[in-house]
């Protein structure tokens, strides 16, 4: 549940980028940070290992202006994708309002996507949250790799694997080049805000 401060007229919304390791969650945030640099007043926080893998989380806060007189502060987080860091993932999910699931389109990562989605469902359930109810957007990342001759899964196969039951909005994207990164984020913000509005009524 988002944090609403009635005194300061401020809403803090937490959106978490989830997905398998090396899938491009941090790259999504880095692109957003670069693109909206002028509007984001603070630095992006990244806690990485020496090998540039996310160790704890990345954090990027920014304002999207006022909605019904309330200042809306969006807080983007990523989780570490590596299987062994599950305790950290669960920690970051605490108080989550919306999820962007970044799936890896590479054929060799098919299994990893499924495992990560299953793991998300388990971790959400520890906070009594339902994966089918939480506002979620799927992103099929790395489509730029097809130009380099790397075998990719088609969006149909990815959709069948991951989205048959969820029926969430999905985007083919390249976090590295920035295609559909902003579209993914906008969709996530809009469905998360819509769901909050419903909850607050």
């Amino acid at each position, binding site marked *: 549940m988002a*944090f609403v*401060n009635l005194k300061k007229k401020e809403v803090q919304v937490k959106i978490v980028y989830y997905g398998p390791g090396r899938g491009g969650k941090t790259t999504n945030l880095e692109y957003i940070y670069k693109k909206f640099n002028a509007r984001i007043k603070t*630095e992006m926080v990244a*806690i990485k290992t020496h090998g540039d893998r996310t160790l704890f989380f990345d*954090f990027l806060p920014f304002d999207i202006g006022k909605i019904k007189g309330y200042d809306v502060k969006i*807080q983007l*987080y990523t989780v570490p994708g590596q299987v062994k860091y599950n305790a950290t993932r669960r920690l970051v999910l605490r108080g989550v309002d919306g999820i962007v699931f970044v799936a890896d389109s590479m054929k060799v990562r098919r299994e990893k996507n499924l495992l990560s989605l299953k793991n998300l469902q388990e971790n959400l359930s520890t906070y009594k949250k339902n994966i089918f109810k939480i506002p979620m957007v799927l992103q099929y990342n790395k489509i730029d790799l097809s130009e380099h001759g790397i075998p990719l899964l088609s969006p149909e196969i990815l959709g069948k694997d991951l989205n048959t039951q969820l029926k969430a909005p999905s985007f083919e994207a390249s976090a590295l080049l920035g295609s559909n990164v902003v579209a993914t984020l906008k969709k996530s913000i809009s469905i998360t805000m819509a769901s909050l509005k419903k909850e607050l009524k």
Partner: protein
Amino acid sequence: MDYTLGQKELDSMEEILQKDLIDLGVHCVFLIDMAGNIIVNLDNGDIEHDIYSLAALAAGNFGAVSAMARIVGENEFSLLFHKGKKENIHFSKVMTDFLLVTIFGRETSLGFLRLKVAEAIKKIKVIL
């Protein structure tokens, strides 16, 4: 975890933190929940820290330390302290779901701060 705090509660918490901590020379103080949301924040007007990032990191940090506590057989470490050259940070748990973070300089001694933080928390607990 769901909680609701109205204007009155927030006002009284601000008053407590102002009187017990800021007025005594603490640079900046904020109360956050374990998801990293800021509930109340106050400073002495001289500093410009990015408190949203600080809050996110503080909540994460505390989560990590709690996990460490469990590994060594403790239920929790209820307070944390980081010492710097000019600024120090003190974290103290408030009940199970909240964290009071205090940033203070060399002019304030740790013992005095701990005493004041404990007093403020006692008063805040009544409100939360």
